[in-house]
């Protein structure tokens, strides 16, 4: 009961300062919105933007039948945006990045009507880029089909012994290829993989919300750890020692207050994210609760250690900020560890903050069930226990 009384006294002292509410709730919400906006801006942004690959079509003889056939087929593609340009203008557009490639139709291309050799077309594009590769793949099929249609028409004219047969045979073969293409046995779509999508799922706040939640949970130590320092400064801790309260009860009382504060903050941020930002913590409510409780216990135990170690308010702020930056940056609260290098990610995964993020992201992004929350919860509880033992050991050695 005395443990609860001590915790209630701590919370009452903390919460009577209205500035604390700004620090505990308003700032994390603002930062969550800000970070979510930043992640969102990093994606493609406008859903209505034209994502087709730009292709400059350079043809000195645009009126030839073969050229018209090829142009018409390319224009039909959902993945291509074909623009007729002069060669110099087309190359300028390529340099400016307005188009991904330039398709140059050789001079005399249309003269194959007479069954001449198929003249080679030229594609100018950045061959190492994914867009350049995509463009090549998109052009390869219709051009191959056109070559095939020309070959068939040529054979047909030879068999008939009539060059006049070339044109209708070409039309027929091309129509057949066109028909085959429309069967869509395999449809090639322009689809640039958005890597970020695997980090955020379908909502950038899936990263921003738990990230800021974990970061500001650590940040709240500035407030809660100061209570312990103030207890020493005002000599009330010494006075508590003269009562029949045992040292472990004092430590537990302060720990409970810190846990209560961090859990209250976490609960408010989860509710805000769930109902305002559409972050689906309720996808697995028990899992969210387990990870949150374990995370809050770890943070509270760390706050207790800071409160025991720090000798002044300045040191509390310093230790809390160092902890916040260390655990936030390395633990993947600002950006996913998947986006960082191998060594950084490996070190980051040792951090309790990384396990808190993993626990939340298993629920929010990967859509996993309760079983995916157990490992992060267990590891966070182990960290909490470790920090608590350190704090208790230091508390017993503390000079009052």
């Amino acid at each position, binding site marked *: 009961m005395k443990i609860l009384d001590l915790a209630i006294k701590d919370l009452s002292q903390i919460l009577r300062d209205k500035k604390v509410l700004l620090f505990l709730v308003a700032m994390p919400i603002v930062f969550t919105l800000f970070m979510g906006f930043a992640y969102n801006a990093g994606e493609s942004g406008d859903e209505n933007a034209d994502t087709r690959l730009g292709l400059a079509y350079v043809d000195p003889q645009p009126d030839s039948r073969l050229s018209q056939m090829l142009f018409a087929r390319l224009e039909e593609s959902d993945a291509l945006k074909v623009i007729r340009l002069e060669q110099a203008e087309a190359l300028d557009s390529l340099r400016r990045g307005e188009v991904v490639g330039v398709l140059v139709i050789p001079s005399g291309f249309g003269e194959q009507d007479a069954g001449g050799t198929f003249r080679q077309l030229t594609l100018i594009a950045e061959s190492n880029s994914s867009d350049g590769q995509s463009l090549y793949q998109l052009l390869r099929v219709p051009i191959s089909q056109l070559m095939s249609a020309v070959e068939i028409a040529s054979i047909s004219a030879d068999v008939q012994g009539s060059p006049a047969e070339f044109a209708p045979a070409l039309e027929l073969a091309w129509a057949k290829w066109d028909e085959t293409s429309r069967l869509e046995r395999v449809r090639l779509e322009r689809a640039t993989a958005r890597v970020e999508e695997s980090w955020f799922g379908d909502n950038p706040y899936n990263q921003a919300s738990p990230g800021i939640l974990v970061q500001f949970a650590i940040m709240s130590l500035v407030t809660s750890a100061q209570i312990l320092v103030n207890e020493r400064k005002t000599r009330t801790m010494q006075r508590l020692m003269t*009562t029949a309260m045992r040292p472990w009860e004092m430590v537990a009382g302060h720990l409970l207050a810190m846990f209560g504060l961090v859990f209250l903050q976490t609960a408010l941020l989860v509710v805000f994210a769930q109902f305002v930002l559409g972050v689906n913590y309720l996808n697995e409510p028990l899992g969210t609760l387990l990870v949150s409780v374990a995370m809050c216990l770890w943070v509270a135990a760390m706050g207790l250690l800071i409160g025991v170690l720090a000798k002044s308010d300045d040191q509390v702020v310093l230790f809390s900020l160092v902890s916040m930056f260390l655990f936030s940056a390395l633990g993947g609260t600002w950006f996913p560890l998947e986006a960082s290098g191998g060594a950084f990610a490996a070190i980051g995964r040792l951090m309790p903050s990384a396990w808190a993020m993993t626990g939340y992201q298993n629920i929010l992004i990967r859509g996993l069930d309760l079983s995916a929350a157990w490992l992060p919860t267990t590891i966070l509880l182990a960290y909490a226990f470790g920090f608590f033992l350190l704090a208790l050991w230091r508390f017993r050695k503390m000079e009052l």
Partner: protein
Amino acid sequence: MNAIEVRHLKKSFGELQAVQGVAFAAEKGEILSLLGPNGAGKSTTISMLSGLLAPNDGDAAIMGHSIRTEPEAAKASLGVVPQDIALYPDLSARENLVFWGKMYGLRGAALKTRVDEVLDIIGLRDRQKDAVGKFSGGMKRRVNIGAALLHKPQVVIMDEPTVGIDPQSRRHILDNVKELNRQGMTVLYTTHYMEEAAELSDHIAIMDSGKVIAYGTHDELIKLVNGQTRIDLTLNVEGADVLDAWKVVEGVNGIDSTDGVVTVLVSDSNLVLPRLFEAAGKLGARITSVDIQEPNLETVFLHLTGRALRD
């Protein structure tokens, strides 16, 4: 059974032997004062009795409970008024008392009633809702005392509770101590003000350099100086030479100088005082003030240690 029994307590901090085998006892219902200058070991002794410091050797019992083997039981019988104000400045007087009452195990109606009683005892009922941080030094001291009385302890330890406060608050506190004692509480009171020790105490233990150098009632202690008189004198010059000259004057039994005041212990002031004037005159110094005092605890301390209590 004594309310407090201290047996050869020792405490060292590195090389410094702060308390060197202190022993004394206080009967139930009495006021025992620990009198001594700063650094005498009073607060260290109190800290060991309160459970804040573990003794290196020796033991003490509060209402029969050893502070070493039954610390919780000993603490439950004890109310401690620390030398420093140990309250939450952002909480009101009432909130502070309620919290400390809970820490002493009080709950519900009993707690409310007792908090009201204590607010009456310390005379702050009309200011109970004000934050302690806004109180004057004297008012804070009164709340500081009140917080130790909530569980009606059998023994109250007060560590210099009147340091740095106005005369009115000091008077209020001394009256409170007497009233608590009248109600049956045993009080262990530490002070370096001999007037307080003289006014309050049934017994006085005089401490110096970590030891109890004298113990007894006020009258018993005064008898130690065999009717010697104390004379406080001031000179018109820095008087190192004069002090050396006075030390060898016939009839001078002790001498000490602090803050420009020379304290001389003599058997017969009528006889010795003219000799002091004469010795000073020979060195070209003039005595500018003389204060002759009947034997008191200050005289006793000077007699026992060769130093004034205010040193």
